[in-house]
């Protein structure tokens, strides 16, 4: 049941109140949505809380999902991101760094592409909350600075500067890792 038609049947069954169909849906999307939650959360436990809230919201709002407007996974991802942002905002977790972004040459794209998803995620998690949230929203999830500013309650300029600093932070981490690897091999 991996075809869009089969998925629609599954979603129709969930709309009809089927717990079993919802369990199938959970099994199918738990990994991808958990990774979304892991990107925004400070730790695994928080990510699990986000995932739980995400699926409960999916169930509550499943009637609003229209398959003609897009894939279920994208719709569910949006819900997961909203859950994460809601928590981050409500707890005022993000503290915008005031350190200046230093210009840095980044020539390690090849090294970056060779890294595993888990290594990339670990790097994201080392960033301050403000950097991490803006980076996730803009680079990975495709939000504009205007949307980020509205969602996080910050100025557009702040969003831009946070993104710049997040990029430099990650590039610095990657460069350092490459150096360590070269030294170990050398």
């Amino acid at each position: 049941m991996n075809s869009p038609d089969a998925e629609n049947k599954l979603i129709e069954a969930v709309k009809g109140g089927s717990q079993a169909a919802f369990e199938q849906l959970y099994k199918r999307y738990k990994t991808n949505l958990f990774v979304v939650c892991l990107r925004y959360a400070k730790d695994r436990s928080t990510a699990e809380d986000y995932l739980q809230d995400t699926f409960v919201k999916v169930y509550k709002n499943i009637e609003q999902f229209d398959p003609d407007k897009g894939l279920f996974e994208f719709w569910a991802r949006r819900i997961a991101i909203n859950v994460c942002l809601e928590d981050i905002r409500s707890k005022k977790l993000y503290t915008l760094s005031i350190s200046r972004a230093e210009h840095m040459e980044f020539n390690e794209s090849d090294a970056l592409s060779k890294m595993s998803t888990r290594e990339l995620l670990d790097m994201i998690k080392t960033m301050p909350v403000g950097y991490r949230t803006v980076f996730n929203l803009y680079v990975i999830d495709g939000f504009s600075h205007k949307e980020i500013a509205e969602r996080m309650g910050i100025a557009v300029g702040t969003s831009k500067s946070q993104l710049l600093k997040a990029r430099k932070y990650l590039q610095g981490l990657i460069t350092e890792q490459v150096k360590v690897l070269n030294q170990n091999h050398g």
Partner: protein
Amino acid sequence: MDRFDEIWRNRFQQEEIEPSLWNTPGENVWKAVEKGVLMEKRRRRKPFFFLLLGALALGAGLLYMGLQNGEIAEKTGLEAENGVTTSLQSEAFEAESSFELTPEETEGTLDDKAFETGELMTPKTSDAGEPSTPNGEMEGAIPTSESTTTTAEEVASEIDGQPAAISEEQTAGLRDQPPLYRENTSMQSIGESLISADGGFLSKNIVAGITPGISTPEKLLPRELRPFSLSEIDNLQESIHQRILSEREIQTEDLKSFGAGLRTGLAVWSTSVNSTYREDLAAFDFDFSKRDLGWFAGLELSYKLNSKLDFSAGFIYERATGSSRHNSSLKYGVSTEDQESHSHDYSELVATPFGFASADFSLIRNSEVEGDEIELLADFESEHTIENYSFPLTLRYFPLERTGNFSPFITAGVGINRLSVVQNTLKKVDPGHTAFDFKPLESNTNLTTELQQTHIDARLSLGLNAKLGGNWSANLSIEYIRGMSKIFESGPYYSRINRGWISISAQRQLF
């Protein structure tokens, strides 16, 4: 977007992330999600619950009012009955109570009576305001005891110059009567009334006349004032008793009464699925036509409204077991199968009339097949067990009344039901291909969470009531129960439960 951003986005957004330990949430997450979903379902069902609660409260209120009215009617009947007894037996009661008096008390009673008599004989303005005749004789009706509430002295003080109606001699004469006389004080009271009407002369004769063994001057009185003889009173009392008893017997047939009993029988469950489930290879494409067989047992309370109508309520437990079939397509990839066991694990939704069951199983390839991907048209057979509690509220009508030992009846009513357990077990999967074998993994699912557990039905039955002797009776009936509310709904599809009962019950009239 520069190269740096593109790598990040592709990695997290577009590429398929393989499940691994680090990106798999713990088991507790699904349990928490289930709890959250259950709460959401309860929240959605609240309006229905309150509606049901309101209907139950209304029904209970109406029943209570009905019972109250029944009690009032019963009391009114008894009071009326008692009224007859009281009015007609009061004099006899007076006589009976006077037997218990000691001679001294009797004397006192006689003194009082004498005073009362004097009071009655005192000329005074009647209640209607008409003056009495000057010589103390009353015109019109004889005053009753209720109208003589003032004492002789008070009346005497009000009307100057009027002599006491009964002289000292007369009073003394009354006191001197032998015990035999005192045994007939009921007659005294009647006599006293008469004394009040005729003055001093009649009083002696009348009192003497009602005493056995003494000649009666009844002929001196107009017919309506003649006292009863003892034999007449006895006859009167006897006839009153007879009348009361016969009235009671007649009313016993119509008296409201409560009964309680046990009921049990066989049940046939037929789940009616609306809309078509015959889309090719859809999860809904299943055969639901098999009937489930079961049994039921419970308590039944009844309230007899009249000779033709009973109201009954009960609590019934039901259990049924049956099966359903479901067709679905399964794709088997030879290149992607487990290389050691030559198998694929599946997690499928199994459609049943009671909702979807989640079933995990394996298909094992036992021989070579052509092609890499095989599409199998598999038949799923699942077995389900249902438990249901019902609260029937019915009216039972006896068209021929309950005169003989056997009385036919028709019952109509509603039932409030609660599905408590609906378990579905995947029994087998027929892959429809000789090269594949089925192996069950996990398939026992309680489906109640996705069902509308509370459902309403309408009931109609035909039966026969048999009197067993004493306060016991038995009922044999055939009942059709039609589901009025949906128990499962998914898109255009929904299912209801219809049942057929063959039942026998034994009931005892409690009070």
